[in-house]
């Protein structure tokens, strides 16, 4: 039966996530971006809200069952505060969720409990490759089976906390399929570029290029499961975060427009501006429902869940660009100044076309 209202439990989570998001993440966002660093205590506080913990069954040390929808609701709230913060908090999920969804029983038992038991630690994953036509289902990083082992060769980019992580998952093409491989720090042939990558946004997160020059991993380090659910989970996460960023930008522009005087009225009283805001709000709500639907489809094992996740993220990419661009436009010259957050959100906004792989729910 149709319903568009989160459960009481979800509402409580949304409330908690928003409180942290507004009073912690948002306040730290500007300095984190400028100083290119997120305080570890801040990340830890978000980690302790237990979004990942709630996705991991008790058998592996968690306290729940994965609900893509619930996690997506939280992801939106975190990103509403600050996208970099939201991604950083969720970075261990890039490792843990593939293990949960595609890993063997042994892998789950080995890796999940310590992640959940400890403070936030930089477990990570390498999916994105430095190519304009990067396609998660047709990777250029190759895995070859050779005498009971796999040999990984290729180049990855946009790997968060790669230099700090003790272990990561590397995605590579095995025959025709994308598969995940567990690669420990210091593996022979694995090179994490020393210097951090420089991007237009997300400067608070250390990203690295990672090259794999014939890295050997054992058979037991292959995640046996399919890649599709992992990609779906990432697409929904990124789409939910796009909604969060868009909502932040919309609200900021709306509030600014209500305060700003122009020709004897508030600028929001001009239809040219009011209509922009109306369209932004409509667009955000429309795409939010698409994201919810995709998350719901995943949770309910719907056949077309993958297609829904794809449509959701594709729609979200356009939506968030449109909304964040307009937020800057509505603030005019002030929107271009880094004292206001809208320019940061606009930089984030453009990135969503590239971010699939940086979050999972």
């Amino acid at each position, binding site marked *: 039966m149709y319903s568009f209202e989160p459960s009481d439990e979800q509402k409580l989570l949304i409330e908690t996530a928003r409180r942290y998001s507004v009073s912690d993440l948002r306040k730290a966002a500007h300095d984190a971006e400028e100083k290119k660093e997120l305080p570890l205590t801040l990340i830890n506080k978000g980690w302790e809200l237990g979004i990942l913990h709630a996705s991991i069954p008790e058998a592996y040390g968690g306290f729940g069952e994965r609900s893509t929808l619930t996690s997506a609701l939280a992801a939106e709230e975190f990103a509403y505060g600050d996208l970099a913060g939201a991604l950083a908090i969720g970075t261990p999920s890039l490792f843990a969720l593939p293990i949960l969804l595609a890993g063997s029983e042994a892998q789950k038992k080995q890796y999940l409990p310590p992640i959940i038991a400890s403070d936030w630690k930089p477990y990570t994953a390498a999916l994105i490759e430095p190519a*304009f036509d990067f396609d998660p289902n047709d990777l250029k990083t190759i895995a070859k089976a050779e005498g009971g082992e796999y040999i990984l060769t290729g180049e990855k980019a946009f790997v968060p906390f790669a230099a700090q992580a003790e272990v990561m998952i590397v995605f590579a093409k095995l025959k025709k399929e994308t598969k995940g491989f567990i690669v420990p720090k210091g593996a022979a042939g694995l090179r994490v570029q020393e210097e951090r990558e420089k991007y237009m946004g997300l400067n608070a997160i250390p990203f690295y290029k990672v090259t794999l020059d014939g890295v050997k991993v054992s058979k037991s380090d292959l995640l046996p499961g399919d890649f599709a659910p992992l990609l779906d989970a990432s697409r929904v996460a990124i789409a939910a975060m796009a909604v969060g960023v868009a909502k932040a930008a919309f609200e900021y522009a709306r509030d600014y427009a*209500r305060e700003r005087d122009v020709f004897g009225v508030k600028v929001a009283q001009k239809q040219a501006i009011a209509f922009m805001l109306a369209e932004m709000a*409509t667009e955000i709500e429309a795409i939010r429902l*698409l994201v919810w639907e995709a998350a719901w*489809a995943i949770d309910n094992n719907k056949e077309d869940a993958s297609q829904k996740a794809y449509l959701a993220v594709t729609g979200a990419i356009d939506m968030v660009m449109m909304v964040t661009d307009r937020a800057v436009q509505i603030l005019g010259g002030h929107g271009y100044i880094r004292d206001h957050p809208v320019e940061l959100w606009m930089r984030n906004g453009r990135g969503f076309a590239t971010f699939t792989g940086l979050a999972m729910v």
Partner: protein
Amino acid sequence: MIDFEIPEKIAGTRLVVETVAVNMMRPVSRYFDEHEHEIPWDYINFMHTATKAMGGASMAPGEGKKEGPRFGFQRLAVMVEMLSWGDAGIYLDTPGGMLGSAAVSATGTPEQKERFLKRFRGETPVFDAMCMTEPQCGSDTSAIRTTGVLDKEKNEWVLNGEKIFVTAGHKAMLDSEGFIVVWATIDASAGRAGMRPFVVEAKTPGCQVTNMEHKLGIRASDTVSIVLTDCRVPFDNILGSPEVVTTDKATTGFKGAMATFDATRPIVAAQAIGLARATLELLKEMLAERGVTIRYGLPRQKLTSIEKDVIDMEILLRSAWWLVLKAVWMMDNGKPNSLESSMSKVRAGDVVNRITQKAVEIMGPLGYSREYLLEKWFRDAKISDIYEGTGQINRLVVARQILGYRSSELR
């Protein structure tokens, strides 16, 4: 608990309506488009019989049972979406209570509802219509000049004025024993506070259908002008209070109209969605027949231009449909939905035009050809962004809601 599963009962209804759309609408779509002002009686009689057989008087939700979840408006939205998928013009000829009934349902007393709505349960199909627009005003509904003056001696209202763009007005007043709901002012000095809807029944002296429009699309539906000349209706035909209260700036009479729009806008949006879905489905079918299939899941950089277009259309359609369903779901659950209602209309009006326009473009001469329905749907689509509040008026409603402005603050 968020849930995107169609309720079983609605799914059943949807299946039935689909059969009607496929068998009774699509085969005659082109005919009635090319024979403007002919009436699709086969469809009308069938719908009338079917609705009666299901125990209803109209497709509109009734008072319903008190317990358990209510989904009357959700069911209506799903039905309208499907009928419009069949044919957006013929759908508008569906008997048994449309916009006029919605006004009666939203603002009438129990006695009025019984008196005016029972006719839909009769032997023959009956129509109704809403009369708001006048020659000098459309979206600016507070500028209407049609007057309602109370003749205290005879206890009757005397209506004078001219209404245009009345959907199904001919069928309501001349082809059946139906009624129209006429918006008039009972106190011009009170502005919006003085506006009231009146029910004018078929054959009422002084009420005349004067003109039938020739339109870009939805040609199976009649659009008429109605002139009221000293047209007398009983005192009880006024919907809402006969008293004019001007103390409150946001006024009761006007609020009545707006409350009706909260219910009807998502339904009109649902109509747009049905048409958009029909278009997208036919487009994909025609492309598939010519060897073009859509590869979902690829990054945009690897898609062809046509694939990009179709995928974007899919996103527009899907997201707009959920906005519609959310708006009617709120309606069913008694949640205030002015914002969502207008949002759904804004989005659906946009989406159906973008999709139909793109589809004709993509199919080239085949899209432009009257051999296929794409060009018809392109013409049918445009009305969705115009009636029941233009896209611009609905943007205004959305903007006022999100900014917390009254109409005087955001004009």
